[in-house]
């Protein structure tokens, strides 16, 4: 039975840890599918975490914090769009700039306003998102297997966890089953073809970036107003890059990106679980090895050893309308 509860807790951790990755990967998919490189997921996630925590603290309501985070992230995406789409600047440089800027600014402002070296005040219960208990979770807990699955695994997560996994089919539907999605994908593959069809390439990219901003905001808000009760410096801790890796690993497709996110989340959950544990024959696995695994896997994929990761055709190239 202990084994079963171990498995349950591992699954729980995986779902929770993967949540910000899922939101970020979905955000990345929208931007990149429209042809705009987005390496600034890390910075935007951090910004969202900061704004959500601070907003919730001052306004007393986590939903308002989330709203402010959405506004902040959409603004950042628009800035990136402005630099890349309208000004045709280098998209990679723009992303690097945003990441560095946000790391600095969020901690600096937190320190300046709250004086605790980058920590924002702890949020009380009203200012946070709490775990959601599904109906009948308590009473069903003792039912064998089904009860464990329902009560211990499915129930009791933060709302963002549920939202994340519901977002995936929604994203899939939008990108592959609507005309908006068709145009989105076309813009990322062959903007000239889209232009000759009478669609505004720039407008499409800005819309994609707006959606990107909304989604990544959820990732950041999850970190600071759900899992934790405040913002602390650099709390995104590389998750934005991990999400990038998951997106590439998932070949820019929501379903496979989800699998990649879960895989990466699992390695993280596993690594925590395995610390100090001696496995038979192998001995103790260095925790850093497991931590490095997602990154190594991504490089292997990019090298083409595990199938080809083909990016949207027109990615990274500013669209220049010929007169």
């Amino acid at each position: 039975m202990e084994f079963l509860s171990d498995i349950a807790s591992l699954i729980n951790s995986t779902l929770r840890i993967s949540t910000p990755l899922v939101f970020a990967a979905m955000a990345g998919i929208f931007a990149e599918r429209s042809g705009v490189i987005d390496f600034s997921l890390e910075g935007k996630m951090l910004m969202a975490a900061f704004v959500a925590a601070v907003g919730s603290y001052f306004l007393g309501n986590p939903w308002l914090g989330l709203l402010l985070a959405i506004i902040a992230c959409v603004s950042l995406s628009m800035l990136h769009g402005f630099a890349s789409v309208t000004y045709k600047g280098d998209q990679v440089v723009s992303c690097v700039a945003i990441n560095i800027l946000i790391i600095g600014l969020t901690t600096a402002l937190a320190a300046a306003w709250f004086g605790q070296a980058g920590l924002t005040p702890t949020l009380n219960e009203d200012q946070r998102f709490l775990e959601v208990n599904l109906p009948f979770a308590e009473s069903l807990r003792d039912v064998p297997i089904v009860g464990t699955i329902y009560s211990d695994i499915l129930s009791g997560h933060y709302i963002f966890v549920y939202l994340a996994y519901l977002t995936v089919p929604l994203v899939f539907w939008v990108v592959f089953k609507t005309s908006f999605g068709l145009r989105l994908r076309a813009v990322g593959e062959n903007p000239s073809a889209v232009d000759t069809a009478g669609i505004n390439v720039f407008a499409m990219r800005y819309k994609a970036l707006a959606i990107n901003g909304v989604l990544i905001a959820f990732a950041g808000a999850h970190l600071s107003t759900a899992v934790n009760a405040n913002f602390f410096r650099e709390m995104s801790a590389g998750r934005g890059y991990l999400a990038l890796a998951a997106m590439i690993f998932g070949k820019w497709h929501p379903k496979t990106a989800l699998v990649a996110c879960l895989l990466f989340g699992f390695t993280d959950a596993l690594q925590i679980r395995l610390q100090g544990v001696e496995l038979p024959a192998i001995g103790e696995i260095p925790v850093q090895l497991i931590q490095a695994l997602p990154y190594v896997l991504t490089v292997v994929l990019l090298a083409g050893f595990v199938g080809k990761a083909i990016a949207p055709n027109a990615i990274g190239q500013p669209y220049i309308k010929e007169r």
Partner: protein
Amino acid sequence: MATVDKSKVPWWVSNLIVPLINLILALFVSGLFIFIAGENPFEAVRLIIYGSFGYIEGFAYTLYYTTNFIFTGLAFAVAFHCRLFNIGGEGQAYIGGLGVFLVAINFSFLPVPIVWLLAVMGAVVFGAAWAFIPAYLQATRGSHVVITTIMFNFIAASLMVFLLVDIIRDTTQMGPHTIALPEEQWFPSFEDFAALFGIKIRYSPLNISFLLAIAASVFVWFLVWKTRWGYEMRAVGHNTQAAIYAGISPYKNIIIAMCISGGLAGLLGVNEILGVHHKIVAGFPAGYGFTGIAVALMGRNHPIGIFPAAFLFGILYQGGSEVTFDMPNITRYMFVAVQGVIILFSGALENLFRPQIENFFVNRLNLKAKA
């Protein structure tokens, strides 16, 4: 607005005025940030200038930071000439440092100057090796070097922490660092230099690596503009099709450019390990790799520009320290933000006001000619 005839724009407008205006814009925005944080931007500027120039140790610190920024700035610039974005400076510096340490520890029986020479080579070789795989994958399989180098940064961090915690740790201490190198191997510091003249100054991390950085700048200048390899790298970077026509191999040049870039980043390890800490300390690259990107962009990827840009960032870092000392509301992270703003205005938005500025100067010069 009429487009400017590019040939009529004087070089000093494109390469001095425009970057200067971009910098001023960035500083203006930074001032706003400081104001939002609740402090007086002008007071902050005064403190920055005092902290970086006002006393000899402060100036030494400034030059110490400049050293690191020169290495990472040169690294990014060299790869950029081949149109490659090497974001992996952090990781390459980290692994370069490993090279320095391993050489110094294992060859300590050799005379010190030889050890230094070998250690520098070790830094370059290890740094280049860390850049080699992303380079190879880009050249042969088209894997985007930006993503692979970012991944390799994380892999380097994990690898080094593993080594520092498990393998090469100084077991008599608690922290994740190695044992210290024997004292005779330590690079002469600025303190030592001043002592030669009988001047006693306080500690600063400035050491002869600064001279190594200047040598590296000269080397890069020579390599990129005076040798055939630099010529070919630039050709591939500007126009790959034409390079193929001329019989220049893009494949070979991508790998060479990245490896030299990685080697330059590795030299940061020489400064940190032989010059400052005298051991490998976890996390010693401390963001210098990313700042190098800003330095290179501001310096327009030329050593002549990189030196002042590195110096500027040195001032920001050291002066920034002084500010954080005296203004409790401002932490060093504010200066990380400033760095981000500078990259934004010098890099991504560098053409924001370029047409207006160039237009202005061309018209003024035309008017003068007519008069």
